[in-house]
């Protein structure tokens, strides 16, 4: 594996749902080595404002191109949304660990909330190449925000009931599991911390293997700023760093607290 810290060319940027975009860029070296769950840090502009890079999961790989999914949240994503084919962005990566897709399990159960769907198309493809069954539960605010590209066997839940199950993604998942036989499930979850916390509780209650891909404020992405701690359940060290020890954690490894607003 070799690290990449360079400017790359944007090849396309299209709106795929309400306030949600899929941006592709050309990077054969990243495309050739990226594993499911890893992320990159993007510098959206040469200017010092906004100052920091932003972490993004790689959503999918297409030949020599990589795709990220993002929704409009703040300064960085608004600038990214203006990028057109031929524009350049700075990328640093690949960063972080990977999903435990090589572990022993029967069915991969993907649980995604909002833009937390981002890392799952790539994971889905790798799982399908390995002939592992995939079930996907996708929670969104409403029908206009549902992004299913690259996913398999998708069950949608919306907050307002405008598409699929009316309720949370966890309620949809519980209802499905109560009425279907699923062989040795392993949960892969990504989304807002409140959703991850609920997924963690649900998995522990039912005794399912579960891993959580975390989002965090991050300055560097490589472990030098120490800015992205998540509390660990045991061990001498109180915190793990999301950027280098994550972003994927076993659900038994970490503790969410009230002050996690993200």
């Amino acid at each position: 594996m070799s690290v990449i810290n360079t400017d790359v060319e944007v090849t396309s940027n299209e709106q795929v749902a309400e306030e949600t975009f899929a941006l592709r860029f050309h990077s054969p070296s990243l495309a050739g080595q990226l594993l499911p769950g890893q992320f990159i840090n993007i510098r959206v502009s040469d200017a010092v404002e906004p100052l920091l890079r932003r972490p993004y999961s790689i959503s999918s790989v297409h030949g020599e191109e990589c795709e990220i999914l993002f929704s409009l949240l703040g300064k960085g994503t608004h600038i990214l949304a203006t990028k057109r084919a031929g524009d350049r962005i700075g990328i640093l990566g690949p960063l972080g660990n990977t999903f435990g897709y090589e572990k022993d399990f029967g069915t991969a159960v993907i649980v995604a909330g909002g833009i937390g769907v981002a890392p799952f198309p790539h994971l889905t493809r790798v799982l399908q190449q390995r002939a592992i069954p995939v079930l996907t539960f996708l929670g969104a605010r409403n029908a206009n925000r549902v992004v299913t590209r690259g996913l398999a066997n998708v069950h949608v839940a919306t907050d307002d009931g405008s598409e699929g199950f009316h309720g949370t993604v966890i309620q949809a998942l519980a209802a499905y599991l109560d009425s279907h036989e699923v062989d040795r499930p392993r949960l892969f979850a990504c989304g807002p911390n409140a959703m991850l916390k609920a997924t963690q509780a649900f998995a522990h209650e039912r005794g399912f293997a579960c891993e959580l891909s975390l989002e965090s404020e991050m300055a560097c992405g490589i472990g030098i700023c120490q800015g992205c701690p998540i509390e660990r359940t045991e061990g001498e060290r109180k915190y793990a760093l999301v950027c280098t020890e994550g972003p994927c954690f076993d659900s038994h490894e970490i503790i969410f607290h009230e002050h996690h607003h993200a």
Partner: protein
Amino acid sequence: MNTSYTLGSMHLKNRVLVASGTFGYGNEAAPYTDLRALGGIVTKSVSWLPRQGNAPTRIAETPAGMLNSIGLANVGIDAFIAEKLPFLREIDTEIIVNIAASTTEEYIRILERLEGEEDIAAYEINVSCPNVKEGGLNFGTRCDMTETITRELRRRTERTLIIKLTPNVTHIADFAKSCENEGADAVALINTLVGMAVNFRTRRPVLSTITGGLSGPAIKPVALAKVFEASKAISIPIIGIGGITTWQDAIEFLLVGASAVQVGTASFRDPDAAVKIARGMETYCREEGVEDIQDLVGALHIDAGTAAPGFVKAREQEKV
């Protein structure tokens, strides 16, 4: 063209160091940059015992800057020597260990422990961390405490001794003077400015510690003024820190009186930033016909008759 610099007993190949707390212990950034091209690496602060650091949220982006409240998270002296130092000593650059403590005795204990280890070129004493409850800023905002620590450490080491100063004081020059009087080889300034970020939606502070330390390009003008102020008051070298992101920034710090610089927050944006800055400074010197980069130190042109800022004038009168 000469970019090297001798500071106390330490020989720097160039004027660019990476700042404490922004470069870990060197190993994390190693894949992204050529560590040998740095003048030196100032380590993440080392305390006697390991420190877990503050609860999240620890960082907040601000206009052209960022706030941090890491809380000196570090592995402690034993693990530093056993696990971090072996990697650092293999790098062909100077290693400056940054020391943080809550009491004068703890500073002494850490320094004495490190005296037994080879390949450490210098100590940078952190008397200016705004993010811990005990020690830190309490030392750095009291001249008498800064003096005591400098004196006690000076008598215990022949290695280069650098005191890192906080800008969160009325006259930073007074503190620089205290360090000079007690035998420090250099002062490094500035550490972060106390700042705060608020989320209007949740109506809560963004950081878990409410306030944090502001860094990045936003603080560069403050840092330039503080280095300028200190340079008028002392004759020991100053290491300039504060928002340095480009080689142009670094040259500006030399002009106002810094003999070397540290690159901090810029490394978060680009782990190769400090090396790019060092190379840029070299190119600038070559293009401008500067044979020794030392010629730029304090070479700021101020037209005759320009009224000096109040703080500088006050000190000059004092000297007379």
